[in-house]
């Protein structure tokens, strides 16, 4: 599927043979829908600046923002906004001279997503920029917009003749779709169907920035490039797996989006299930995009479906109440909701039942993982920002060093930190010096920054480059997204039907509700301190 792009758009260039595809991203215009928004400001525009500084962008490249919000000269406005975003969020420090080189290829077209004339203006602008920068009619449309606007935008793009079928046109058109892809299975299917009306699947890049993180990519290397690990990576040796995505921040400025969405949709359906797939997948027979994605999708198919009773016993949702973070008192979620809607002069909803925390136990019913619980948890206003995958190995037999039940051995744990401080650690038992046999757990650590130095590229940098190079390995395929939704739907439906107005609560600055502890303690296990 993925090879169709490359075969048709790249006439043979012997100067590029033998080099990695990402070293030669193809000439193109990146069109950012919603360029006035938060994501573009914080992530996308700084990411392009960093790629430019690293000298990895194609020489024939330009960025055109599209949307509402410009004040005065649109091009000048987006350049100022990009500058501000870079000054705040860029990996590389801001440098005026380097920024000038970036800004000369940065433009903005003001227009509404429901205005066909605006799309005509966009098309005209793209033709001008294309001639100026020799981008060979190649376009990447980045949908950094709410899901509700995707259908309309794609329709207008197609109507305006801006979507080319690669095989016919000799130039590529690609679309990047941001999460959330729907708020349930039906809406996800609708969005996918909308996109599919104009774009083939191999032109579609559904982005999940977690997959651009070095440590997540390293999961594949760690598992399949180390002969000591792969033989142990199964239910015979692994006791259980914990995947944690903890956030110290509250909902903040995303409250308008978050209320009614919650942690299950916001984190579990996409990020956590994607990381779960990377952790549990079978060895792919090659690194071709669809081979890797097939292997990941298999994991989703093998997830044991949750019955309403399972949801009762295996899933915990909760909401934070007022507490303390970094010595500062912070309000509870419902207080924030009330303040947010009051400030926006909107009706304040009744007591919100939006979950800010989810913990769950899931099983992967295949040969490798039969009987091994995977504990997933995510929450806001937890004590710190930390994401990790922890593989806890089975205890050794209760003889020799593990004979005294009052002093059990700490289990061997391999933990892979996704953020911050990307790296991995192995906890093993070792003998304390001295005549007596006393055992002490030690942690052997590898830290990406310490080991490899410098700053790793941001996930968005890597992923943008992959789209320019036509490599879809790290992007979600349509069936993956829909299968992930299929898995979480019983939970959403169960919650919907339960009509429970009370949610377990946890104090901001703690590791979640008591119910989550009970969930794992019922299995005689504990949540890890991350």
């Amino acid at each position: 599927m993925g090879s169709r792009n490359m075969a048709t758009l790249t006439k043979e260039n012997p100067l590029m043979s033998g080099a990695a595809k990402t070293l030669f991203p193809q000439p193109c215009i990146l069109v950012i829908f919603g360029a006035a928004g938060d994501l573009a400001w914080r992530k996308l525009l700084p990411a392009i600046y960093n790629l430019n500084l690293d000298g990895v962008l194609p020489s024939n490249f330009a960025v055109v923002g599209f949307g509402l919000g410009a004040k005065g000269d649109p091009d000048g406005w987006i350049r100022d906004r990009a500058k501000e975003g870079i000054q705040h969020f860029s990996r590389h420090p801001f440098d005026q001279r380097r920024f000038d080189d970036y800004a000369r290829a940065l433009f903005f077209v003001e227009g509404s997503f429901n205005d066909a004339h605006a799309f005509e203006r966009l098309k005209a602008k793209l033709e001008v920029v294309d001639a100026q920068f020799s981008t060979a009619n190649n376009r990447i449309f980045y949908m950094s917009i709410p899901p509700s606007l995707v259908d309309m935008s794609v329709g207008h793009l197609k109507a305006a003749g801006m979507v080319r079928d690669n095989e016919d046109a000799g130039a590529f058109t690609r679309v990047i779709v941001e999460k959330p892809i729907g708020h349930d299975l039906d809406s996800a299917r609708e969005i996918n169907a909308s996109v599919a009306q104009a774009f083939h699947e191999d032109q579609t890049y559904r982005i999940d920035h977690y997959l651009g993180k070095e440590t997540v990519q390293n999961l594949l290397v760690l598992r399949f490039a180390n002969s000591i690990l792969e033989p142990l990576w199964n239910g015979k040796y692994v006791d259980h797996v914990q995947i944690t995505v903890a956030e110290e921040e509250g909902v903040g400025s995303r409250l308008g989006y978050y209320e009614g969405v919650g942690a299950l949709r916001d984190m579990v359906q996409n990020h956590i299930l994607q990381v779960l797939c990377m952790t549990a997948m079978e060895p792919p027979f090659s690194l071709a995009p669809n081979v890797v994605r097939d292997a990941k999708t298999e994991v989703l198919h093998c997830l044991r479906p949750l019955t309403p009773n399972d949801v009762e016993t295996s899933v915990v949702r909760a909401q934070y109440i007022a507490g303390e973070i970094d010595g500062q008192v912070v309000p509870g979620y419902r207080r924030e909701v009330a303040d947010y809607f009051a400030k926006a002069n909107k009706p304040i909803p009744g007591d919100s039942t939006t979950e800010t925390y989810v913990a769950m136990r899931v099983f992967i019913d295949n040969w490798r993982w039969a009987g091994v619980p995977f504990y997933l948890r995510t929450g806001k206003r937890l004590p710190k920002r930390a994401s990790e995958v922890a593989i806890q190995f089975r205890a050794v037999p209760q003889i020799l060093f593990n004979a005294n039940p009052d002093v059990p051995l700490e289990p061997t744990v391999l933990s892979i930190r996704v953020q911050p401080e990307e790296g991995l650690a192995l906890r093993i038992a070792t003998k304390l010096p001295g005549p007596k046999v006393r055992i002490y757990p030690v942690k052997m650590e590898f830290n990406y920054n310490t080991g490899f130095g410098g700053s790793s590229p941001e996930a968005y940098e890597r992923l943008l480059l992959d789209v320019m190079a036509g490599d879809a390995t790290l992007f979600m395929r349509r069936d993956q997204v829909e299968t992930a939704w299929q898995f979480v739907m019983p939970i959403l439906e169960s919650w919907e039907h339960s009509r429970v107005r009370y949610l377990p609560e946890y104090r901001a600055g703690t590791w979640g509700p008591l119910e989550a502890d009970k969930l794992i303690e019922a299995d005689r296990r504990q949540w890890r301190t991350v």
Partner: protein
Amino acid sequence: MSELASSELSETTSLSQIEVVLAQQVNAGKDPNEEPVRKARMSNLVVYCDQPQVFETIQNTVPDIVAQHPARVILVVKEPGEVDGQVQGAVNVWCHLGGGPRQRICSEQITLRARSRGVDHLPYAVRGLLLGDLPTNLWWATNTPPPFAGNLLQDLADRAQQIIYDSIGWPEPARGVAATSAWLTGIERSNGNGAWRVASDVNWRRLKYWRRILAQALDPTTAPGALDSITEIAIDHGPHAVIQAWELVSWLASRLGWQIGGGKIQPNVEIAWKVQATHGPLTVKINRLAEGPTAIRRVRIACTIDGARTAINLTDEGKEILRVTLEGQDAAARTVMMPPQPLHDLIARQLTDRERDSVFLESMAVAKVFAQSLLK
């Protein structure tokens, strides 16, 4: 990373005491409130130099290398003088804060010195100081091309998986290039029993952005017909960068399947070759500029794009920007950032880049043919 700090270079230490003195230095000055010092070691880096000024450069470069790629550095120095003597050792450590405000991360440097016939003992000293289970790299930091280095390089590279050399400023470029190309085929080892070895030229690494921008500028999608219509290539370079330019044209010739004809050389001014491509003959010229940075400054390629005769000019404007223009066309100049490539960055990146580079080897094979045409 922050607050790079170093211990003083120790007094001369006997080889048997080096590990002891290193351990003392790592923990010297540690604040009681600090977490245990962490020794970070991703590689063994053996550096050989035989010139005092090169030693100074390396001594100043090592802290930046290990900040980027923590390594045990074994700096091997051949000192001037005829009097034999034992190998002398000295140590120091390079530390920075990382992994937390109270965590010092340190890399070790061992400096070994010898003169005259004592130099022959250096490889023995090095072997005893290498850390097991880490990749070993030899950085051959001398002006002598590796093929002319004799047994010393062979012995130092005995356990190395990578030999890094820098062809910049080599005297007798044609002789150096021809010999090195042949040497490369012998020095590289395949993967048998884990005893693989590659060789890398820092100068080749410097060409990364030039190769990338050339590949893009000549790409059939944006410059239709250009690759099949080149009639002349002219490269201007600063002093001592002739081999850099040479490697660039060799890369083009190897990728595009050109046959090398006769060449002539006007020392320190110009080298010119006649070349046969499938579409016809072309001329390749390498011009030395009298002054300026030791780097390629401009590449001009005469060709036909979309049926129109033109020339692509790629110019290093000296401000980390490469400018691409088409002669006789009004299209706006395109620019590409060319990040600075300080020596420490080039070396640190090369330490993690250990794959056999077939494009480099094929280019060097063509570079040898270019050289032989001048040596006839």
